[in-house]
Each structure stands twice: as structure tokens, then as C-alpha cells.
């Protein structure tokens, strides 16, 4: 049986490159912003670009909270974007069934993890009474990525649901095993 690219009951393939490339580009931009900000937090750069909020960025990056962890919080953000980009680019256009595990890591990284990181960014005015232009820019990127990433995540979850309904190993479906793929649509 030839494997269809479009998931059953769908009008398009959510794993198509046209669907994924824009997200990968956004994640890459997010990575560069966060990497730049972590260079400041690591004292490699002595200043940070801030056109609108005066000392806002500096207040935020030198706060106690941003140094709670052993690595700067911006570096953690950079790692998150890198994970988004890498898991977005890996796999062919059938990956919702051939590699559900990577689609699910991608969905969780962009979705729930992205949402949490956005919330951490936007609560800065509450905690420090200041804003930071590049933090807001990265929050916008994170928010915009969520919607378009979720369709592929859904297709993979539906594929695993079909495995469960057909009494086929969900675990093997998760890893995209061939024997499972042959039994499912």
C-alpha cells in the first residue's frame, strides 16, 4: 500500500514544507534574538539594543530572577528556539506518520513551552515595572509560531489514536515503526 501524504480526513498535508518552513524561519529569528540577549547577560556585550524603553532592557536582564538559574534565561530561550527549528526541519513530508515522536516534541516545544516562555517575558512589567523591546519581539515570534505548528501535531496525535483504536501498539506508532504504518492509514 502506498502511503498517502495527506492524513485521512484532511484537505492538505500539515507536514508539507510550505507549512513548516515559515515556522523554522521564525524560530531561527527567535534564536538569534535570544542568543544576542544572552551575550549581554554573559557580559560579552556591554550594552543591549533598546530603542523605546530607556533602561528597561538593562533593568530586566540584571534582575535577580534572570540569574536564578546557572545559565542566563535568554540562553534558555535560545535553546528553546533551536529545539523548535531543529524539530521543525527534521523529517520528510510524511513525518506525521513516519516520525510522530519528532512532530510531538516539535508541537510541545512550540506550543506549551512557547506559551510558558511568552508568559515569563510579558510578566516583566509586573515584576520589574519595565519593558524590553527585544523581549517583546521574541514573545511576538513565539506567539505567531504556535497556531501554524499545531495542525501537524494534531495529525500525529490522530495517527496514534488510530493505532490505539486498531489495537496496534501506540508505542510503536509513536516511533513510526514500519509494521504499524502498514496496518494504519
Amino acid at each position, binding site marked *: 500500500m502506498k502511503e498517502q501524504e495527506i*492524513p*485521512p*480526513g*484532511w*484537505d*492538505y498535508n*500539515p507536514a508539507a514544507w510550505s507549512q513548516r518552513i515559515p515556522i523554522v524561519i521564525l524560530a531561527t529569528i527567535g534564536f538569534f534574538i535570544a542568543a544576542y540577549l544572552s551575550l549581554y547577560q554573559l557580559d560579552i556585550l556591554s550594552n543591549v539594543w533598546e530603542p523605546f524603553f530607556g533602561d528597561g532592557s538593562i533593568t530586566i536582564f540584571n534582575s535577580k530572577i534572570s540569574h536564578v538559574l546557572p545559565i542566563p534565561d535568554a540562553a534558555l530561550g535560545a535553546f528553546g528556539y533551536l529545539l523548535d527549528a531543529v524539530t521543525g526541519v527534521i523529517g520528510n513530508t510524511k513525518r506525521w506518520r513516519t516520525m510522530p515522536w519528532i512532530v510531538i516534541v516539535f508541537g510541545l516545544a512550540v506550543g506549551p513551552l512557547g*506559551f510558558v516562555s*511568552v*508568559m515569563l517575558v*510579558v*510578566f516583566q*512589567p*509586573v515584576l520589574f515595572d519595565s519593558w524590553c523591546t527585544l523581549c517583546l519581539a521574541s*514573545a511576538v515570534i513565539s*506567539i*505567531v509560531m*504556535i*497556531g*501554524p505548528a*499545531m*495542525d501537524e501535531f*494534531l*495529525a500525529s*496525535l*490522530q495517527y496514534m*489514536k488510530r493505532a490505539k*483504536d486498531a489495537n496496534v501498539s501506540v508505542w510503536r506508532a509513536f516511533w513510526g515503526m514500519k509494521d504499524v504504518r502498514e496496518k494504519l492509514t
Partner: protein
Amino acid sequence: MWSLIISTLLGLWLMFAPGLLGLSSTAADNDHIVGPVIVTFSVIAFWECTQVMRKYNIPLGVWLLLAPWILGYEETVAIVNDMSTGFFVILLSLIKMKVEKHYGGGWSSLIQS
């Protein structure tokens, strides 16, 4: 689509209103927290597949109606601002949107047996 654009703008308004209106810290903190969450849910709902996220704005709108009384706002402008924003956010979240494509039964297919 237009309803989501307006609720996004209302969320942004909550982010900037405390500064513009000079609100006290209780009202300002509340707006600074609720505003971005409304923006986030509205923007995610722009995509058909995740359109359901607009409904998550309803509890936020309800909270805005109640917050002035629960948190004890003292300024009239803060009370009016939160309550009217909350009212419109609820109203906009109730507007049903067209779904043109098919998503294999959507998210609800995952919990059906």
C-alpha cells in the same frame, strides 16, 4: 477574523492602558497579566486548526468583570476600563467563525472512542 483582530487589540490595550491612564499598582498588575494572555489566545485562534483558543478568552473576560470587586479597585477609570474590556472580550469570543478546511475530525476526534 475581525473579531480576533479586535480582541488582540483589546489585549494590547490592557498592556498599555495602566501607563497611559496612570493606574494604581493593583489594577496595573492585573491588566499587565491578563492583557498578554488575551493577545496570545487571540493570535493562536487566527489559525483554523486552533480556532477553539478564542473560547479560552471567555474566562479571562469574566475575570475582568469580577476583578475590580475582588481586588478592590479604588479608581473609577480602572473599574470601567476592566469591566468594559472584559465585556467586549466575552462578546467577541462568542462569535462563531467559519471553518473551511477539514482536519480529520479536529481535536475532539482524539477523545472520541
